[in-house]
């Protein structure tokens, strides 16, 4: 009996410890986003001292932060929608249609899937320069659609469509639907679970991407959030912690919301993607 109680106590302690460890960073992020700059360099306190909500106003003043937010939102939305649409079409084609070099094309897709963006970033940079697309949001929107995230979504959808019974399609064909209608009326709706997890993953990845905007974007008005966050520095290039942390808090809020609402969905999608 005694043994059982100590066991429970131990596991409770472990839970508390892990929680503490993982909440600690987030806690400090929020606390210090509400402190003024001198308090941050004092001895750390577990609660904000001055509750300086003005930080949250200030971040919009020192930088066009709202603009950065909208940029990121635009890129994430266009990227995600394009990614999902294209990968649904391509995934369906790879799974069901016969066309020359299909297997070769699929191998190519798998290669694209494995190709880290860092490997292709230099040629992409020159490509975008030739198109005059540098320092615009265009490359950031194109990459999630045609880059490895797009290849990944296509792969997932193909794997899904391979498992959809052929009879479903045959029945529709006998009822006189043409291939395009079959796709929009039947194949898209049945794939909604996969489509949504692919969409969530694409959205999170576009929202968080850092290397691509860093390479492609120069002017302040085209910054996305990750660039913007790193730019809250004073004239000496030292970070203004209170503003930076306030901005960071705001920037991860949407993702945390998505995560908290669709927790099961997000974790499942991510784990499956790791197992691919």
């Amino acid at each position: 009996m005694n043994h059982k109680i100590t066991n429970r106590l131990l596991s409770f302690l472990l839970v508390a410890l892990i929680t503490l460890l993982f909440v600690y960073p987030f806690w400090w992020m929020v606390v210090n986003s509400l402190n003024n700059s001198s308090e941050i360099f004092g001895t750390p306190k577990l609660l904000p001292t001055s509750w300086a909500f003005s930080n949250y106003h200030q971040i919009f003043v020192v930088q066009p932060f709202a603009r950065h937010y909208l940029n990121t939102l635009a890129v994430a939305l266009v990227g995600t929608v394009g990614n999902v649409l294209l990968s649904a079409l391509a995934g369906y084609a790879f799974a069901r249609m016969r066309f020359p070099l299909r297997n070769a094309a699929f191998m190519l897709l798998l290669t694209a899937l494995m190709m880290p963006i860092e490997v292709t970033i230099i040629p992409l940079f020159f490509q975008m320069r030739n198109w005059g697309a540098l320092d615009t949001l265009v490359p950031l929107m194109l990459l999630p659609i045609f880059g490895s995230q797009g290849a990944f979504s296509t792969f997932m959808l193909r794997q899904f469509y391979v498992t959809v019974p052929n009879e479903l399609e045959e029945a529709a064909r006998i009822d006189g639907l043409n291939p395009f209608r079959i796709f929009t009326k039947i194949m898209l709706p049945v794939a909604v679970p996969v489509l949504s997890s692919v969409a969530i993953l694409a959205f999170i990845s576009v929202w968080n991407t850092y290397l691509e905007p860093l390479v492609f974007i120069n002017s302040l008005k085209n910054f996305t959030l990750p660039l913007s966050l790193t730019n809250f520095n004073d004239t000496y290039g030292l970070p203004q912690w209170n503003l930076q942390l306030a901005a960071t808090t705001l920037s991860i809020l949407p993702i945390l919301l998505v995560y908290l609402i669709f927790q099961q969905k997000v974790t499942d999608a991510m784990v499956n993607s790791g197992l691919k």
Partner: protein
Amino acid sequence: MNLILSLLLALYLGEGRLGSKFIRGIIFLPVVTSGVAWAIVWKYLLQGGDAGPVNWALSLFGITGPNWLFEKGWAMASVIINRVMKNLGMNVLIFMGAVLNMPGDVIEAARIDGAKHFNLFFKIKLPLLMPTVMMVAIVTVIGSMRVFDTIKLMTDGGPEGSTMVMVYYIYHQAFRMFDTGFASALAVVLFAIVLVLTAVQWFSRKKVSYYES
């Protein structure tokens, strides 16, 4: 390190103990958070002196923390801690899937045969989990080679290049030194390494699924 921790945690959580659902939620938070945000927060946490909350917490126990990001060994340690915490949630979930799929009858049989905790783990559970361990190991290695935002924001490759990693080096050469030729060569090497690792993963999986059946 990531492997061992996440494996242990997964085994623990897999038994559906107190609060395991809650922990799962918590440790997955950093996975969805952006690398940039995570790095910024950690850069703040790891400030030298007493101002950084990590050193402050250590000082409560009477330990004087190092100046994390600016001392050679510690800078790398900081980056590693940061990455481990960020990816732990992911690996734990993958392992949990594997733990839950372990055939219960085998473990039952071993237990009847008198296997104790320690033996049970090393002789039965670990071999059963080996394919997953292998997979997670390779994915983690590839992931670590691609660390960029953490390095860029936390240490900038320094001090004295002690935290320079492959991808950051590519970026540095191409877009700071404008030596794109050299950087491209590095990129090809990186790709080759990733390719080999992926191939290893592919083949080992085939072999492993054979023995599973």
